């Protein structure tokens, strides 16, 4: 998808492939669309289903908190927020089709918010007790920055959030949070429905052709799946890791860390890596690579394992980890892994499948 991130261009190197698979001796390898089908069935649909379930539960927990505020209810809502964010981390790189239609990805999570635009808007809603933010319909019509996870995180964890645990607290704040959760539940249900519809975007991906507006060839459809990995690693590095780490300890900027208020930064990063590994494995993409280049699969898995081991070794919260020499080293190693994995996906995997990556059109002018 070419929405909020740069896109790759793929050129067909083996013009006849895969039509003549049987005669080329590559007949045992699955076709390109089979890889795409597995990605949809085993990764994309379960991911959106899980997110939709979590959003529904988050809505219920927020409603319960507003109906009967208590420390336990607040704790419950906060824990649910963590699992909702973790479900989001599993699908956020799937930025094509339903997730980009109607700015859904931005509505769900307006981030990075470098200039604090969304945060200021959320704070204004809370300060003015803007009733138009209470009600899913009117909230949906407001800025995309005030209706998703950024807003819900501030409601539950931002300045003043602790007052939510008692009747004497801030009922407006709670109702705004509950509306955001309801909005997320509605959007996520729409996403789940859109992906589960056999005639919907799944068909767009699985039936490339001249009359298909999005994908003309099987290569383009498969390229979309490979792009998820390539751009996923790039996003991890360029937006989530490097801006927080800075070039030196002194330049570290932990306030830029994703979901830092809720303390979910590392969980989200880990979920991102795991989701890309999951997509890589369940799509069986390596099956479509000729025998000689199957080593790429082993190399990628090795790097995924390195990433997992690194996450297991990060014990400090992100604010401290970026300033601790040893822990910072681990985060820096994750940056290296994103580079290595991106290169493996873009320059090895894609090329081995006959999807070549352009020199400059890779990421635009």
């Amino acid at each position: 998808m070419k929405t909020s991130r740069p896109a790759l261009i793929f050129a067909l190197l083996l013009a006849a492939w895969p039509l003549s698979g049987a005669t080329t001796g590559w007949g045992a390898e699955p076709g390109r669309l089979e890889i795409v089908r597995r990605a949809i069935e085993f990764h994309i649909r379960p991911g959106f289903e899980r997110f939709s379930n979590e959003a529904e539960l988050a809505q219920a927990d927020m409603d319960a908190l507003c109906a009967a505020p208590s420390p336990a209810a607040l704790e419950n809502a906060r824990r649910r927020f963590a699992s909702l964010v973790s479900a989001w981390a599993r699908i956020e790189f799937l930025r094509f089709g339903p997730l980009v239609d109607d700015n859904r990805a931005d509505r769900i999570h307006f981030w990075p918010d470098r200039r604090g635009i969304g945060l200021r808007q959320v704070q204004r809603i809370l300060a003015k007790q803007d009733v138009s933010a209470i009600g899913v319909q009117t909230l949906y019509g407001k800025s995309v920055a005030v209706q998703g996870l950024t807003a819900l995180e501030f409601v539950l964890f931002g300045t003043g959030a602790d007052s939510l645990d008692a009747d004497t607290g801030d009922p407006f704040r709670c109702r705004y949070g509950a509306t955001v959760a309801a909005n997320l539940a509605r959007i996520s249900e729409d996403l789940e429905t859109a992906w589960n519809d056999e005639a919907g975007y799944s068909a767009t991906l699985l039936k490339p052709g001249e009359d298909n507006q999005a994908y003309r060839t099987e290569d383009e459809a498969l390229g979309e799946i490979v792009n998820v990995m390539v751009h996923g690693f790039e996003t991890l590095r360029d937006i989530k890791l490097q801006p927080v780490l800075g070039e030196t300890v002194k330049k570290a900027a932990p306030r830029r860390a994703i979901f830092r208020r809720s303390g979910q930064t590392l969980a989200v990063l880990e979920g991102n890596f795991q989701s890309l590994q999951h997509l890589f494995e369940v799509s069986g993409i390596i099956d479509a690579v000729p025998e000689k280049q199957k080593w790429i699969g082993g190399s990628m898995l090795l790097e995924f394992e390195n990433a997992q081991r690194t996450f297991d070794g990060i014990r400090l919260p992100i604010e401290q980890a970026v300033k601790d020499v040893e822990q910072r080293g681990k985060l820096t190693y994750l940056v290296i892994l994103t580079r290595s994995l991106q290169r493996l996906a873009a320059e090895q995997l894609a090329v081995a499948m006959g999807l070549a990556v352009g020199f400059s059109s890779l990421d635009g002018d």
Partner: protein
Amino acid sequence: MLDRRSFMTAAGSGFLSALLPRAAEALERSDYVFAAPCRKPDGSYAVAVAAGNGDILHIAGLPDRGHDVTFDPVSGKAVVFARRPGTFAVAFDLTSSGVQLTITSPPGHHFYGHGVFSADGRLLYSAENAFETAQGVIGIYDCTDGFRRKGALESHGIGPHEILLMPGSKTIVVANGGIETHPDFGRQKLNIALMKPSLAYIDVATGDLVDQIYLPVALHKLSIRHLCVDGAGAVWFGCQYEGATGDEVPMLGRHRPGREVELIAADEGLCRSMKHYVGSVAANSDSSLIAATSPRGGVAVMLDAETGRVVSSRTLPDVCGAAADGTGFAHTTHDGLFDVHGRAVSSGTIAAWDDHLLRI
């Protein structure tokens, strides 16, 4: 634009005597001279001056990847800008065999890759990002004083990309692409949902906004990025779309100052063949044709400047550069081809041409 004779006059004997015999011969046979940033086979970056047949006349190293070149026929100086978010530009003095001077953007700014000289050649304007506030800026540099920065104008939008001088030389037209980036976040786009691209006309003397054109709200994700001005003073613009893959949107448009903006209808299949991405636009010498390229779609398109209809659409993988070559166009590609009227030549000295090609 200059023909060979004027170029040689501008370039002077220093440039010519510095040429190798073969290059001098190529120049002698050539009607036109071009300049473009490029990548050499060893992976280093450079800017090259080429004869009309693609023969390389001169090549000079750059610290990093370049994007576009602008030329001042008065002084014979050319400036190549770094690709965004680069912070350098290099000035070449063709009259003294390519003496170089590096210009750096001020702290807190980076270049966007495009710039233009004032008509008298005394000032250089460059598209810049004041990135802490994401403000689009037109930097002003004094060419008579070592390209010292003299000041800046507001671009009146986020992400100014290509800028050109309008006929009459009093106004600069700016393609405010609308996309926010910050060097700490690499080249990631930070505001897609909030994009508001525009075409801004700015009085260079006062900095006043003379006119500003926005596309319809439904097209707010259509980033206006590349420009050419035809002989009739119409501004042609090429766009890049940040919306959904399957959306049918116009990729090109024309604005005749004082009139409504015209979008080139998508029913020509342009949107699809160009894959939502126009890399550059150019007008031919008599402004009867407009060229538009798409490296993503691998197509070079020609439009009738009168009607806006597609005259031809040619497959040319990785094509991006386009510049007038008499009645037609020369093109360059990211895989190192220099294409003159459909005849592509590669050169051992160039591995890849960068995005833009300038006819000097």
